[in-house]
Protein backbone atom coordinates (compact mmCIF):
# COMPACT_ATOMS: atom_id res chain seq x y z
CA UNK A 1 0.00 0.00 0.00
CA UNK A 2 1.42 3.29 -1.04
CA UNK A 3 1.22 5.43 2.06
CA UNK A 4 2.25 8.70 0.59
CA UNK A 5 -1.37 9.46 1.39
CA UNK A 6 -1.39 13.10 2.48
CA UNK A 7 1.47 14.78 4.18
CA UNK A 8 -0.34 14.85 7.48
CA UNK A 9 0.52 11.23 7.98
CA UNK A 10 4.19 12.09 7.83
CA UNK A 11 3.56 14.92 10.25
CA UNK A 12 1.69 12.48 12.48
CA UNK A 13 4.59 10.07 12.37
CA UNK A 14 7.03 12.82 13.34
CA UNK A 15 4.76 13.98 16.14
CA UNK A 16 4.54 10.42 17.46
CA UNK A 17 8.32 10.02 17.47
CA UNK A 18 8.64 13.38 19.23
CA UNK A 19 6.13 12.32 21.89
CA UNK A 20 7.92 9.04 22.53
CA UNK A 21 11.16 10.95 22.90
CA UNK A 22 9.61 13.49 25.28
CA UNK A 23 8.02 10.71 27.33
CA UNK A 24 11.39 8.99 27.66
CA UNK A 25 13.02 12.24 28.65
CA UNK A 26 10.27 13.06 31.15
CA UNK A 27 10.58 9.67 32.80
CA UNK A 28 14.34 10.01 32.92
CA UNK A 29 14.20 13.49 34.47
CA UNK A 30 11.52 12.38 36.92
CA UNK A 31 13.81 9.60 38.16
CA UNK A 32 16.40 12.24 38.98
CA UNK A 33 14.00 14.16 41.19
CA UNK A 34 12.55 13.20 44.53
CA UNK A 35 12.54 14.01 48.20
CA UNK A 36 15.85 12.15 48.51
CA UNK A 37 18.80 13.34 46.47
CA UNK A 38 20.29 10.48 44.50
CA UNK A 39 23.15 10.65 42.11
CA UNK A 40 21.98 7.84 39.89
CA UNK A 41 25.41 6.77 38.74
CA UNK A 42 26.74 6.07 42.19
CA UNK A 43 24.21 4.37 44.42
CA UNK A 44 24.52 2.49 47.66
CA UNK A 45 22.16 -0.39 48.48
CA UNK A 46 19.59 1.78 50.16
CA UNK A 47 19.58 4.31 47.36
CA UNK A 48 19.08 1.50 44.87
CA UNK A 49 16.02 0.41 46.83
CA UNK A 50 14.72 3.96 46.81
CA UNK A 51 15.23 4.27 43.08
CA UNK A 52 14.02 0.86 41.93
CA UNK A 53 11.43 -0.07 44.54
CA UNK A 54 9.87 3.29 45.26
CA UNK A 55 10.61 5.99 42.73
CA UNK A 56 10.62 4.08 39.46
CA UNK A 57 7.45 2.01 40.04
CA UNK A 58 5.65 5.20 40.96
CA UNK A 59 6.80 7.02 37.84
CA UNK A 60 5.90 4.09 35.63
CA UNK A 61 2.50 3.69 37.23
CA UNK A 62 1.94 7.42 36.86
CA UNK A 63 2.71 7.13 33.15
CA UNK A 64 0.38 4.18 32.81
CA UNK A 65 -2.44 5.89 34.71
CA UNK A 66 -2.01 9.02 32.60
CA UNK A 67 -2.15 6.99 29.40
CA UNK A 68 -5.28 5.16 30.62
CA UNK A 69 -7.19 8.29 31.52
CA UNK A 70 -6.23 10.14 28.33
CA UNK A 71 -7.21 7.12 26.20
CA UNK A 72 -10.55 6.87 27.94
CA UNK A 73 -11.13 10.61 27.54
CA UNK A 74 -10.19 10.71 23.85
CA UNK A 75 -12.35 7.75 22.91
CA UNK A 76 -15.37 8.76 25.01
CA UNK A 77 -15.25 12.24 23.52
CA UNK A 78 -15.37 10.92 19.97
CA UNK A 79 -18.01 8.34 20.77
CA UNK A 80 -20.28 10.81 22.55
CA UNK A 81 -19.45 13.61 20.11
CA UNK A 82 -18.57 15.83 23.01
CA UNK A 83 -15.16 17.38 23.67
CA UNK A 84 -16.14 17.83 27.32
CA UNK A 85 -16.71 14.14 27.99
CA UNK A 86 -14.17 13.00 30.57
CA UNK A 87 -14.14 9.95 32.85
CA UNK A 88 -13.93 12.12 35.97
CA UNK A 89 -16.72 14.50 34.93
CA UNK A 90 -18.97 11.73 33.63
CA UNK A 91 -18.93 9.91 36.96
CA UNK A 92 -17.00 6.96 35.54
CA UNK A 93 -14.09 7.60 37.90
CA UNK A 94 -16.47 7.83 40.83
CA UNK A 95 -18.07 4.54 39.80
CA UNK A 96 -14.63 2.96 39.83
CA UNK A 97 -13.83 4.63 43.15
CA UNK A 98 -16.99 3.26 44.73
CA UNK A 99 -16.17 -0.19 43.37
CA UNK A 100 -12.68 0.01 44.83
CA UNK A 101 -14.04 1.08 48.20
CA UNK A 102 -16.51 -1.79 48.29
CA UNK A 103 -13.73 -4.23 47.45
CA UNK A 104 -11.61 -2.64 50.16
CA UNK A 105 -14.34 -2.95 52.75
CA UNK A 106 -15.56 -6.46 51.89
CA UNK A 107 -12.62 -8.19 50.22
CA UNK A 108 -9.64 -6.45 51.77
CA UNK A 109 -7.52 -9.60 51.63
CA UNK A 110 -7.78 -10.00 47.84
CA UNK A 111 -5.70 -7.40 46.12
CA UNK A 112 -7.18 -8.24 42.73
CA UNK A 113 -10.73 -7.57 43.93
CA UNK A 114 -10.07 -3.84 43.75
CA UNK A 115 -9.41 -3.47 40.01
CA UNK A 116 -12.18 -5.96 39.26
CA UNK A 117 -14.73 -4.06 41.34
CA UNK A 118 -13.42 -0.77 39.97
CA UNK A 119 -14.01 -2.04 36.44
CA UNK A 120 -17.54 -3.12 37.35
CA UNK A 121 -18.25 0.25 38.97
CA UNK A 122 -16.88 2.16 35.98
CA UNK A 123 -18.94 0.09 33.54
CA UNK A 124 -22.11 0.60 35.52
CA UNK A 125 -21.59 4.35 35.82
CA UNK A 126 -20.89 4.61 32.08
CA UNK A 127 -24.03 2.70 31.25
CA UNK A 128 -26.21 4.80 33.54
CA UNK A 129 -24.86 8.13 32.29
CA UNK A 130 -25.32 7.00 28.71
CA UNK A 131 -28.90 5.92 29.30
CA UNK A 132 -29.69 9.16 31.08
CA UNK A 133 -28.12 11.38 28.43
CA UNK A 134 -29.71 9.58 25.51
CA UNK A 135 -32.99 10.94 24.30
CA UNK A 136 -35.05 10.42 21.20
CA UNK A 137 -33.52 13.52 19.70
CA UNK A 138 -30.03 12.15 20.27
CA UNK A 139 -27.59 13.43 22.79
CA UNK A 140 -26.58 17.02 23.35
CA UNK A 141 -23.63 18.42 25.25
CA UNK A 142 -25.60 19.89 28.10
CA UNK A 143 -27.63 16.78 28.72
CA UNK A 144 -24.51 14.65 28.87
CA UNK A 145 -22.63 16.97 31.21
CA UNK A 146 -25.71 17.23 33.40
CA UNK A 147 -26.16 13.46 33.55
CA UNK A 148 -22.48 13.19 34.45
CA UNK A 149 -22.91 15.70 37.25
CA UNK A 150 -25.94 13.86 38.61
CA UNK A 151 -24.22 10.47 38.58
CA UNK A 152 -21.01 11.95 40.00
CA UNK A 153 -22.75 13.64 42.91
CA UNK A 154 -24.95 10.62 43.57
CA UNK A 155 -21.93 8.32 43.72
CA UNK A 156 -20.04 10.88 45.81
CA UNK A 157 -22.81 10.86 48.37
CA UNK A 158 -22.65 7.07 48.58
CA UNK A 159 -18.88 7.33 49.00
CA UNK A 160 -19.34 9.90 51.78
CA UNK A 161 -21.90 7.64 53.44
CA UNK A 162 -19.50 4.72 53.27
CA UNK A 163 -16.59 6.73 54.62
CA UNK A 164 -18.66 7.83 57.59
CA UNK A 165 -19.01 4.16 58.48
CA UNK A 166 -15.23 3.74 58.46
CA UNK A 167 -13.06 4.50 61.43
CA UNK A 168 -11.00 7.68 61.49
CA UNK A 169 -7.71 6.12 60.40
CA UNK A 170 -9.24 4.44 57.34
CA UNK A 171 -11.09 7.61 56.53
CA UNK A 172 -7.88 9.56 56.26
CA UNK A 173 -6.31 7.10 53.86
CA UNK A 174 -9.47 7.11 51.75
CA UNK A 175 -9.89 10.84 51.50
CA UNK A 176 -6.31 11.11 50.35
CA UNK A 177 -6.74 8.32 47.83
CA UNK A 178 -9.99 9.80 46.51
CA UNK A 179 -8.13 12.95 45.52
CA UNK A 180 -5.82 10.92 43.33
CA UNK A 181 -2.65 9.65 44.96
CA UNK A 182 0.20 7.65 43.49
CA UNK A 183 2.12 7.08 46.70
CA UNK A 184 0.90 3.48 46.99
CA UNK A 185 2.47 2.43 43.69
CA UNK A 186 3.97 -1.01 43.38
CA UNK A 187 5.59 -2.64 40.43
CA UNK A 188 2.73 -5.18 40.29
CA UNK A 189 0.24 -2.33 40.21
CA UNK A 190 2.13 -0.98 37.24
CA UNK A 191 2.10 -4.33 35.40
CA UNK A 192 -1.66 -4.61 35.80
CA UNK A 193 -2.30 -1.05 34.70
CA UNK A 194 0.11 -1.37 31.79
CA UNK A 195 -1.61 -4.56 30.61
CA UNK A 196 -4.89 -2.62 30.58
CA UNK A 197 -3.24 0.18 28.59
CA UNK A 198 -1.99 -2.28 25.97
CA UNK A 199 -5.37 -4.02 25.64
CA UNK A 200 -7.26 -0.73 25.67
CA UNK A 201 -4.99 0.86 23.08
CA UNK A 202 -5.34 -2.08 20.71
CA UNK A 203 -9.13 -2.17 20.98
CA UNK A 204 -9.43 1.59 20.61
CA UNK A 205 -7.05 1.89 17.67
CA UNK A 206 -8.97 -0.91 15.97
CA UNK A 207 -12.08 1.21 16.40
CA UNK A 208 -10.38 4.51 15.64
CA UNK A 209 -11.56 4.79 12.07
CA UNK A 210 -15.11 3.93 13.11
CA UNK A 211 -14.81 6.57 15.83
CA UNK A 212 -13.90 9.12 13.18
CA UNK A 213 -17.36 8.55 11.73
CA UNK A 214 -19.07 8.35 15.12
CA UNK A 215 -17.53 11.72 15.93
CA UNK A 216 -19.48 13.21 13.02
CA UNK A 217 -22.76 11.55 13.90
CA UNK A 218 -24.09 8.23 15.07
CA UNK A 219 -26.71 7.97 12.33
CA UNK A 220 -24.12 9.06 9.82
CA UNK A 221 -21.66 6.43 11.01
CA UNK A 222 -24.34 3.77 10.68
CA UNK A 223 -25.16 4.87 7.12
CA UNK A 224 -21.53 4.65 6.10
CA UNK A 225 -20.98 1.14 7.35
CA UNK A 226 -20.03 1.40 11.03
CA UNK A 227 -21.51 -1.21 13.34
CA UNK A 228 -22.48 1.43 15.82
CA UNK A 229 -23.49 -0.86 18.67
CA UNK A 230 -20.30 -2.88 18.46
CA UNK A 231 -18.13 0.22 18.41
CA UNK A 232 -20.00 1.72 21.34
CA UNK A 233 -19.63 -1.47 23.35
CA UNK A 234 -15.92 -1.70 22.52
CA UNK A 235 -15.30 1.89 23.62
CA UNK A 236 -17.38 1.62 26.79
CA UNK A 237 -15.72 -1.67 27.77
CA UNK A 238 -12.18 -0.51 27.10
CA UNK A 239 -12.63 2.89 28.75
CA UNK A 240 -14.16 1.20 31.80
CA UNK A 241 -11.21 -1.20 31.91
CA UNK A 242 -8.73 1.67 31.63
CA UNK A 243 -10.45 3.90 34.17
CA UNK A 244 -11.10 0.96 36.51
CA UNK A 245 -7.46 -0.13 36.69
CA UNK A 246 -6.26 3.48 36.90
CA UNK A 247 -8.61 4.37 39.74
CA UNK A 248 -7.93 1.16 41.65
CA UNK A 249 -4.23 2.02 41.52
CA UNK A 250 -4.31 5.75 42.16
CA UNK A 251 -7.77 7.07 43.02
CA UNK A 252 -9.48 9.73 40.95
CA UNK A 253 -6.88 11.73 39.09
CA UNK A 254 -9.13 14.27 37.42
CA UNK A 255 -9.10 16.21 34.17
CA UNK A 256 -6.32 14.23 32.45
CA UNK A 257 -8.86 12.82 29.99
CA UNK A 258 -10.06 16.33 29.24
CA UNK A 259 -6.89 18.35 28.79
CA UNK A 260 -4.70 15.84 27.03
CA UNK A 261 -6.88 14.86 24.04
CA UNK A 262 -7.76 18.51 23.58
CA UNK A 263 -4.12 19.53 23.28
CA UNK A 264 -3.38 16.59 21.00
CA UNK A 265 -6.24 17.62 18.67
CA UNK A 266 -4.92 21.18 18.63
CA UNK A 267 -1.57 19.83 17.49
CA UNK A 268 -2.53 17.20 14.91
CA UNK A 269 -6.26 17.46 14.16
CA UNK A 270 -9.13 15.15 14.96
CA UNK A 271 -8.22 11.86 13.28
CA UNK A 272 -8.62 9.28 16.03
CA UNK A 273 -6.03 6.99 14.50
CA UNK A 274 -3.54 9.63 15.63
CA UNK A 275 -5.44 11.20 18.52
CA UNK A 276 -5.84 7.92 20.40
CA UNK A 277 -2.22 6.69 20.48
CA UNK A 278 -0.84 10.20 20.92
CA UNK A 279 -3.22 10.94 23.77
CA UNK A 280 -1.86 7.86 25.52
CA UNK A 281 1.70 9.16 25.19
CA UNK A 282 0.82 12.75 26.09
CA UNK A 283 -1.32 11.59 29.05
CA UNK A 284 1.63 9.62 30.36
CA UNK A 285 3.87 12.68 30.08
CA UNK A 286 1.31 14.91 31.78
CA UNK A 287 0.74 12.71 34.81
CA UNK A 288 4.44 11.97 35.30
CA UNK A 289 5.08 15.72 35.32
CA UNK A 290 2.16 16.45 37.66
CA UNK A 291 3.23 13.70 40.03
CA UNK A 292 6.81 14.95 40.04
CA UNK A 293 5.44 18.28 41.25
CA UNK A 294 3.35 16.41 43.84
CA UNK A 295 6.45 14.55 45.04
CA UNK A 296 8.89 17.43 45.30
CA UNK A 297 6.88 20.64 45.82
CA UNK A 298 6.71 20.38 49.62
CA UNK A 299 9.16 17.51 50.15
CA UNK A 300 9.52 15.50 52.31
CA UNK A 301 5.77 15.86 52.55
CA UNK A 302 3.60 15.01 49.55
CA UNK A 303 0.62 16.42 47.69
CA UNK A 304 -2.03 14.29 46.03
CA UNK A 305 -1.34 14.27 42.29
CA UNK A 306 -5.07 14.74 41.64
CA UNK A 307 -4.84 18.17 43.24
CA UNK A 308 -2.16 19.19 40.73
CA UNK A 309 -4.07 17.89 37.69
CA UNK A 310 -7.28 19.55 38.88
CA UNK A 311 -5.43 22.81 39.45
CA UNK A 312 -4.53 22.84 35.76
CA UNK A 313 -7.66 21.10 34.50
CA UNK A 314 -10.51 23.00 36.11
CA UNK A 315 -9.67 26.39 34.55
CA UNK A 316 -9.18 24.64 31.23
CA UNK A 317 -12.61 23.02 31.50
CA UNK A 318 -14.21 26.41 32.05
CA UNK A 319 -12.34 27.77 29.04
CA UNK A 320 -13.54 24.89 26.85
CA UNK A 321 -17.10 25.21 28.12
CA UNK A 322 -17.16 28.89 27.27
CA UNK A 323 -15.74 28.29 23.83
CA UNK A 324 -18.26 25.60 23.06
Amino acid at each position, binding site marked *: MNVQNSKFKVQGFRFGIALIFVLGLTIFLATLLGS*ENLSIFDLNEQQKTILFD*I*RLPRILLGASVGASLALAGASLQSLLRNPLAEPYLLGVSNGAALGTMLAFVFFAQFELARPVFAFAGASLATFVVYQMAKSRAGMNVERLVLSGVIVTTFLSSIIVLLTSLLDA*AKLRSFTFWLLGDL*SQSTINGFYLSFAAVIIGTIILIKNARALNLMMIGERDAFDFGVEVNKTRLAVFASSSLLVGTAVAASGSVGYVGLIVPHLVRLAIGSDNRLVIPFSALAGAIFVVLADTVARVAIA*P*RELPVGAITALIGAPMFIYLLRRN
Partner: protein
Amino acid sequence: MQTVLPTREITDDLGHKVKLPDTIERAVSLAPNLTEIIFAVEAGDKLVGRTSYDNFPLEAQKIPTVGDTLNPNIENIIALKPQVVLVSTASQIETFTKQLESQNIAVFITNPNSLVGIYKTIYQIGEIFNKTEKAREVVDNLKQRVADVEARTDTAEDIKVFLQISKEPLFTIGKESFLNDLIYRAGGISVTENVATAYPKLSKETALALNPEAIILSDSEDNKEPNEVFKNSPAVKNNKIFKINADIISRPGPRIVDALEQIARDLHPESFQ
Protein backbone atom coordinates in the same frame (compact mmCIF):
# COMPACT_ATOMS: atom_id res chain seq x y z
CA MET B 1 -33.78 26.16 84.16
CA GLN B 2 -33.12 29.79 84.84
CA THR B 3 -29.86 31.13 83.44
CA VAL B 4 -27.40 31.70 86.22
CA LEU B 5 -25.64 35.00 85.83
CA PRO B 6 -21.95 34.80 85.00
CA THR B 7 -19.88 35.84 87.96
CA ARG B 8 -16.33 34.86 87.06
CA GLU B 9 -13.95 34.89 84.10
CA ILE B 10 -11.48 32.22 83.02
CA THR B 11 -9.13 32.78 80.06
CA ASP B 12 -9.11 29.99 77.50
CA ASP B 13 -6.31 28.93 75.13
CA LEU B 14 -7.37 31.39 72.45
CA GLY B 15 -7.18 34.22 74.97
CA HIS B 16 -10.93 34.67 75.27
CA LYS B 17 -12.11 35.70 78.71
CA VAL B 18 -14.90 33.19 79.17
CA LYS B 19 -17.62 34.32 81.60
CA LEU B 20 -18.96 31.53 83.76
CA PRO B 21 -21.44 31.20 86.65
CA ASP B 22 -20.16 30.28 90.13
CA THR B 23 -20.88 26.61 89.84
CA ILE B 24 -21.15 24.45 86.75
CA GLU B 25 -23.88 21.87 86.92
CA ARG B 26 -24.23 21.06 83.24
CA ALA B 27 -21.35 20.85 80.76
CA VAL B 28 -20.78 19.37 77.30
CA SER B 29 -17.41 18.11 76.08
CA LEU B 30 -16.62 18.00 72.38
CA ALA B 31 -13.33 16.14 72.52
CA PRO B 32 -12.35 12.77 74.00
CA ASN B 33 -9.27 14.18 75.77
CA LEU B 34 -11.42 16.79 77.51
CA THR B 35 -13.91 14.16 78.59
CA GLU B 36 -11.06 12.15 80.07
CA ILE B 37 -9.77 15.20 81.92
CA ILE B 38 -13.24 16.02 83.26
CA PHE B 39 -13.54 12.53 84.67
CA ALA B 40 -9.97 12.67 86.01
CA VAL B 41 -10.81 15.75 88.07
CA GLU B 42 -13.96 13.96 89.31
CA ALA B 43 -16.39 16.26 87.54
CA GLY B 44 -17.84 13.53 85.32
CA ASP B 45 -21.21 13.85 87.02
CA LYS B 46 -21.55 17.34 85.57
CA LEU B 47 -21.11 16.14 82.03
CA VAL B 48 -24.42 15.98 80.14
CA GLY B 49 -23.11 15.56 76.57
CA ARG B 50 -20.08 14.09 74.80
CA THR B 51 -19.00 13.08 71.29
CA SER B 52 -19.27 9.65 69.78
CA TYR B 53 -15.48 9.28 70.05
CA ASP B 54 -15.46 9.67 73.82
CA ASN B 55 -15.16 6.08 75.00
CA PHE B 56 -13.07 6.50 78.15
CA PRO B 57 -13.64 6.07 81.00
CA LEU B 58 -16.47 3.56 80.79
CA GLU B 59 -18.88 5.81 82.67
CA ALA B 60 -18.50 8.36 79.87
CA GLN B 61 -20.22 6.00 77.48
CA LYS B 62 -23.50 6.38 79.40
CA ILE B 63 -23.64 10.09 78.60
CA PRO B 64 -25.71 11.13 75.56
CA THR B 65 -23.72 11.95 72.45
CA VAL B 66 -23.96 15.17 70.45
CA GLY B 67 -22.25 14.15 67.19
CA ASP B 68 -18.50 14.02 66.78
CA THR B 69 -15.67 16.48 67.23
CA LEU B 70 -15.68 17.68 63.61
CA ASN B 71 -19.46 17.76 63.24
CA PRO B 72 -21.12 18.45 66.58
CA ASN B 73 -24.88 18.69 66.47
CA ILE B 74 -25.73 22.20 67.62
CA GLU B 75 -29.41 21.42 68.23
CA ASN B 76 -28.58 18.50 70.49
CA ILE B 77 -26.16 20.67 72.42
CA ILE B 78 -28.67 23.49 72.94
CA ALA B 79 -31.36 21.02 73.97
CA LEU B 80 -29.07 19.75 76.74
CA LYS B 81 -29.01 23.30 78.22
CA PRO B 82 -25.33 23.25 79.19
CA GLN B 83 -23.74 26.21 80.97
CA VAL B 84 -20.45 25.62 79.23
CA VAL B 85 -19.22 23.71 76.20
CA LEU B 86 -15.61 22.59 76.22
CA VAL B 87 -14.05 22.29 72.79
CA SER B 88 -10.67 21.61 71.27
CA THR B 89 -9.43 23.62 68.28
CA ALA B 90 -10.29 20.66 66.03
CA SER B 91 -13.95 21.69 66.08
CA GLN B 92 -15.19 24.30 63.64
CA ILE B 93 -15.12 26.97 66.24
CA GLU B 94 -16.07 30.26 64.58
CA THR B 95 -19.71 29.89 63.58
CA PHE B 96 -20.27 27.37 66.28
CA THR B 97 -19.13 29.63 69.09
CA LYS B 98 -21.36 32.43 67.87
CA GLN B 99 -24.41 30.20 67.77
CA LEU B 100 -23.82 28.90 71.28
CA GLU B 101 -23.03 32.30 72.73
CA SER B 102 -26.26 33.68 71.30
CA GLN B 103 -27.96 31.05 73.45
CA ASN B 104 -26.01 32.24 76.52
CA ILE B 105 -23.91 29.10 76.51
CA ALA B 106 -20.24 29.72 77.31
CA VAL B 107 -17.63 28.17 75.01
CA PHE B 108 -14.23 27.27 76.42
CA ILE B 109 -11.55 26.49 73.86
CA THR B 110 -8.52 24.38 74.69
CA ASN B 111 -5.46 23.62 72.60
CA PRO B 112 -2.99 21.52 74.59
CA ASN B 113 -0.03 20.57 72.41
CA SER B 114 2.63 19.61 74.92
CA LEU B 115 2.82 17.88 78.26
CA VAL B 116 2.85 21.28 79.93
CA GLY B 117 -0.16 22.25 77.86
CA ILE B 118 -2.00 19.19 79.09
CA TYR B 119 -1.24 20.15 82.71
CA LYS B 120 -2.58 23.62 81.98
CA THR B 121 -5.79 22.22 80.50
CA ILE B 122 -6.27 20.02 83.54
CA TYR B 123 -5.88 23.07 85.79
CA GLN B 124 -8.31 25.07 83.66
CA ILE B 125 -10.92 22.34 83.75
CA GLY B 126 -10.38 21.94 87.48
CA GLU B 127 -11.05 25.63 87.89
CA ILE B 128 -14.16 25.55 85.73
CA PHE B 129 -15.69 22.78 87.85
CA ASN B 130 -14.32 24.12 91.17
CA LYS B 131 -12.09 21.08 91.46
CA THR B 132 -8.76 22.89 91.68
CA GLU B 133 -7.58 20.66 94.51
CA LYS B 134 -8.28 17.49 92.57
CA ALA B 135 -6.72 18.97 89.43
CA ARG B 136 -3.53 19.75 91.31
CA GLU B 137 -3.51 16.23 92.68
CA VAL B 138 -3.91 14.78 89.18
CA VAL B 139 -1.18 16.97 87.75
CA ASP B 140 1.20 16.29 90.63
CA ASN B 141 0.67 12.60 90.14
CA LEU B 142 1.33 12.89 86.39
CA LYS B 143 4.42 15.00 87.01
CA GLN B 144 5.68 12.44 89.46
CA ARG B 145 5.27 9.63 86.95
CA VAL B 146 6.91 11.67 84.18
CA ALA B 147 9.83 12.49 86.46
CA ASP B 148 10.20 8.83 87.28
CA VAL B 149 10.34 7.89 83.58
CA GLU B 150 12.78 10.67 82.83
CA ALA B 151 15.03 9.57 85.70
CA ARG B 152 15.16 6.09 84.25
CA THR B 153 15.76 7.09 80.64
CA ASP B 154 18.02 10.05 81.34
CA THR B 155 21.27 8.20 80.97
CA ALA B 156 20.10 5.90 78.21
CA GLU B 157 21.08 6.70 74.65
CA ASP B 158 18.39 8.33 72.49
CA ILE B 159 16.77 5.89 70.10
CA LYS B 160 15.68 7.03 66.61
CA VAL B 161 11.93 6.51 66.54
CA PHE B 162 9.48 6.62 63.66
CA LEU B 163 5.89 7.01 64.75
CA GLN B 164 3.60 5.57 62.08
CA ILE B 165 0.05 6.88 62.19
CA SER B 166 -1.14 5.22 59.00
CA LYS B 167 0.58 2.64 56.84
CA GLU B 168 -0.94 3.50 53.43
CA PRO B 169 -0.74 6.33 52.68
CA LEU B 170 2.17 6.90 55.02
CA PHE B 171 1.29 9.41 57.71
CA THR B 172 3.53 10.28 60.63
CA ILE B 173 4.03 13.06 63.19
CA GLY B 174 5.72 16.35 62.30
CA LYS B 175 7.20 19.22 64.24
CA GLU B 176 3.88 20.59 65.49
CA SER B 177 2.88 17.38 67.20
CA PHE B 178 3.01 17.14 71.01
CA LEU B 179 4.30 13.58 70.61
CA ASN B 180 7.84 14.77 69.76
CA ASP B 181 8.13 15.99 73.33
CA LEU B 182 6.74 12.73 74.62
CA ILE B 183 9.16 10.57 72.61
CA TYR B 184 12.02 12.74 73.75
CA ARG B 185 11.11 12.27 77.40
CA ALA B 186 10.80 8.53 76.83
CA GLY B 187 14.43 8.43 75.71
CA GLY B 188 13.93 8.58 72.00
CA ILE B 189 14.02 11.10 69.24
CA SER B 190 11.45 11.37 66.51
CA VAL B 191 13.15 11.08 63.12
CA THR B 192 10.46 13.29 61.60
CA GLU B 193 10.59 16.08 64.17
CA ASN B 194 11.67 18.62 61.55
CA VAL B 195 8.92 17.89 59.03
CA ALA B 196 6.36 20.68 58.76
CA THR B 197 2.83 20.38 60.22
CA ALA B 198 1.57 18.07 62.94
CA TYR B 199 0.55 15.01 60.90
CA PRO B 200 2.31 15.06 57.52
CA LYS B 201 1.99 12.53 54.72
CA LEU B 202 5.59 11.55 54.23
CA SER B 203 7.45 10.69 51.06
CA LYS B 204 8.35 7.00 51.10
CA GLU B 205 11.83 7.75 49.80
CA THR B 206 12.50 9.98 52.76
CA ALA B 207 10.95 7.45 55.12
CA LEU B 208 13.22 4.74 53.80
CA ALA B 209 16.31 6.89 54.20
CA LEU B 210 15.43 7.72 57.82
CA ASN B 211 16.58 4.27 59.03
CA PRO B 212 14.63 4.36 62.29
CA GLU B 213 15.83 2.14 65.14
CA ALA B 214 12.32 1.69 66.47
CA ILE B 215 8.86 2.07 64.99
CA ILE B 216 5.83 2.91 67.05
CA LEU B 217 2.48 2.03 65.46
CA SER B 218 -0.57 3.94 66.48
CA ASP B 219 -2.66 0.81 66.71
CA SER B 220 -5.67 0.72 64.38
CA GLU B 221 -7.13 -1.76 61.94
CA ASP B 222 -5.04 -0.72 58.95
CA ASN B 223 -1.90 0.19 60.83
CA LYS B 224 -0.89 -3.18 62.22
CA GLU B 225 2.57 -3.32 60.68
CA PRO B 226 5.30 -0.99 59.44
CA ASN B 227 5.15 0.22 55.86
CA GLU B 228 7.02 -1.84 53.25
CA VAL B 229 9.71 0.82 52.98
CA PHE B 230 11.01 -0.01 56.45
CA LYS B 231 11.73 -3.64 55.64
CA ASN B 232 15.48 -3.08 55.71
CA SER B 233 15.49 -0.62 58.60
CA PRO B 234 17.25 -1.46 61.88
CA ALA B 235 13.83 -1.26 63.56
CA VAL B 236 12.40 -4.14 61.53
CA LYS B 237 15.63 -6.15 61.49
CA ASN B 238 15.88 -5.96 65.28
CA ASN B 239 12.13 -6.37 65.69
CA LYS B 240 11.74 -3.07 67.49
CA ILE B 241 8.14 -2.58 66.44
CA PHE B 242 5.77 -1.39 69.14
CA LYS B 243 2.05 -0.92 69.06
CA ILE B 244 0.32 1.56 71.21
CA ASN B 245 -3.39 2.12 71.56
CA ALA B 246 -4.36 4.84 69.09
CA ASP B 247 -6.83 6.37 71.56
CA ILE B 248 -4.17 6.79 74.19
CA ILE B 249 -1.48 8.21 71.93
CA SER B 250 -3.73 10.55 69.96
CA ARG B 251 -5.42 12.27 72.92
CA PRO B 252 -3.70 15.04 74.82
CA GLY B 253 -5.18 14.01 78.15
CA PRO B 254 -4.03 12.36 81.40
CA ARG B 255 -3.54 8.97 79.74
CA ILE B 256 -0.74 10.42 77.61
CA VAL B 257 1.51 9.57 80.54
CA ASP B 258 0.47 5.91 80.15
CA ALA B 259 1.71 6.23 76.58
CA LEU B 260 4.93 7.82 77.81
CA GLU B 261 5.53 4.97 80.26
CA GLN B 262 4.80 2.35 77.63
CA ILE B 263 7.10 3.96 75.04
CA ALA B 264 9.89 4.33 77.61
CA ARG B 265 9.56 0.67 78.59
CA ASP B 266 9.50 -0.40 74.95
CA LEU B 267 12.53 1.66 74.01
CA HIS B 268 14.57 1.03 77.14
CA PRO B 269 13.43 -2.22 78.75
CA GLU B 270 16.81 -2.41 80.53
CA SER B 271 15.98 0.71 82.55
CA PHE B 272 12.80 -0.79 83.98
CA GLN B 273 14.08 -4.07 85.34
